[in-house]
């Protein structure tokens, strides 16, 4: 395959990485932005989403004979909801009791990371679990070529994608637009942004801040879980799969600007596309090295991130 089609394929793969990463990291960004805590267990919420998706699709198929599409649709609802509820329970049992103290929250969520990981290992075992995609039609893509009779479309071998991969990009983008609409144009979004700005004044104006924190923590975890549900037909569910999403989410949240959802999405697109291109043309390891170096450069030259604001 020539360079051009190869590059388009790399961009497509990168777009899928970017889409899932943007969803997952947006969850981490709103939790940091509003609660001002670093959730080290965020990757485990991603992992829980994937494992619950596998459990739901497998159970529905085995017990009720449900089709992959029905199983996937149910998983896309149940996994984020369950993960969000687990996060809210964690908030009530742990984070609110340590009053969202930033240092103690880091330690507490490290503990939570291992608890969730080991409980999943004990419950579902160490094997990677596949989830069948609800639809997966291959689409061959055309490529314009200049021949002796002028421009014509050719169909290079292996140059194509699948309907499911395109669906992942569209679904993630739709969820992110919905999140933006929720934050900017709803009453709960206004409450969340007011709480992010000034916890005390929000309280003075009747906002039950602890309830907001609990819901935001749940929403952040649900976004990570939804990202995992989308990607699990491509990647498989495994109890150790939370590490990479956590690292990449931290990378894009720092590059985008701590707490800035729009900055996080922008950074996810940059890192995702870079990852796709570098992985296809060089190696996946080099892609990770580049992302980590990018974080270091941002911390040195623009500590507030691409779209973050400097602390006053």
């Amino acid at each position, binding site marked *: 395959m020539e360079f051009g089609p190869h590059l388009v394929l790399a961009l497509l793969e990168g777009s899928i990485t970017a889409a899932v990463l943007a969803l997952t990291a947006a969850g981490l960004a709103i939790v940091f932005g509003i609660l001002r805590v670093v959730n080290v267990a965020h990757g485990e919420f991603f992992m829980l989403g994937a494992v619950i998706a596998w459990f739901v699709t497998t159970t529905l198929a085995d017990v009720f004979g449900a089709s992959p599409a029905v199983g996937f649709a149910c998983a896309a609802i149940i996994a984020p909801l369950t993960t969000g509820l687990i996060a809210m329970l964690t908030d009530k049992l742990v984070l609110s009791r340590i009053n969202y103290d930033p240092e103690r929250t880091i330690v507490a969520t490290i503990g939570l990371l291992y608890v969730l990981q080991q409980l999943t290992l004990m419950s579902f075992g160490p094997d990677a679990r596949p989830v069948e995609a609800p639809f997966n039609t291959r689409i061959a893509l055309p490529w314009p070529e200049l021949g002796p009779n002028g421009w014509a479309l050719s169909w290079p071998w292996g140059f194509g994608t699948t309907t499911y991969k395109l669906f992942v990009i569209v679904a993630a983008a739709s969820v992110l637009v919905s999140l933006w609409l929720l934050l900017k144009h709803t009453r709960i979004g*206004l*409450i969340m*942004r*007011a709480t992010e700005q000034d916890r005390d004044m929000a309280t003075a104006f009747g*906002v039950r801040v602890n309830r907001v924190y609990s819901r935001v923590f749940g929403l952040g975890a649900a976004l990570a879980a939804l990202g995992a549900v989308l990607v699990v037909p491509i990647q498989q569910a495994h109890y150790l799969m939370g590490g990479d999403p956590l690292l990449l989410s931290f990378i894009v949240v720092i590059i985008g600007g701590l707490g800035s959802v729009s900055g996080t999405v922008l950074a996810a697109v940059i890192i995702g596309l870079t990852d796709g291109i570098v992985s296809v043309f060089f190696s996946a390891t080099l892609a990770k090295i580049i992302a980590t170096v990018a974080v270091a450069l941002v911390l040195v030259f623009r500590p507030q991130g691409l779209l973050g604001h400097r602390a006053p």
Partner: protein
Amino acid sequence: MTLVVHAIDAGYGAVRVLHQLGFSARAGEVTCILGRNGAGKTTTLRAIMGLLPLDAGAVHLGDEDISALPASETASRGIALVPQGRRLFGALSVSENLDVGLMARRASSTRTDNDIREHVLTLFPRLRERMKQRASTLSGGEQQMLATARALCIEPKVLLLDEPSEGLQPSIAALLRDTTRQLAEDGVAVVLVEQHIDTVLALADKAILIENGRLEKSLAKDQLDATVLSRHLGV
């Protein structure tokens, strides 16, 4: 409705700032809290709002003990705070800041959001031109107007004002003074922390002097004069 502060103790962690502080603020009156920097004036307002837990004592609004309520319930009882330094939601627009105030308005209110919004924009017409603007980009005077307007969206029975004229040009300070007087005449109990002698003399129906978190003296309107006040204000 009368706000009564009964012998409250409050502070920050192990540091106790207020010691057995008590006073009352009646509807239709402006009660000034005076004292030097660090005397505990802002702490008093925070304690009334429930933003600081009380170590002892109680705060009553009418017959209700509001010190037992969560801080987020204080606004719904009709107590509004205009804090020192304005503390607007800077990244939100002027309109959204008013929306936050409207969300907290009293459950017993019979007026619609639009009515209340129109009322506060009539008091501060300059804000009408800035509705889409970020609060952090307003001038100091406009920010103070917005902080006051946001509090008025609650339709307060008690309005706590913490140094509202600090750093303002005289014309804006005069506008806020007139608004405060009008609110008191409309039946609101105003509790005003203020350092400017002119403002205190123009507005106060009574004053309490705080020294090291303790009530030093209560002064009726006819006992207030510039000489007395200058001894108790400033650094």
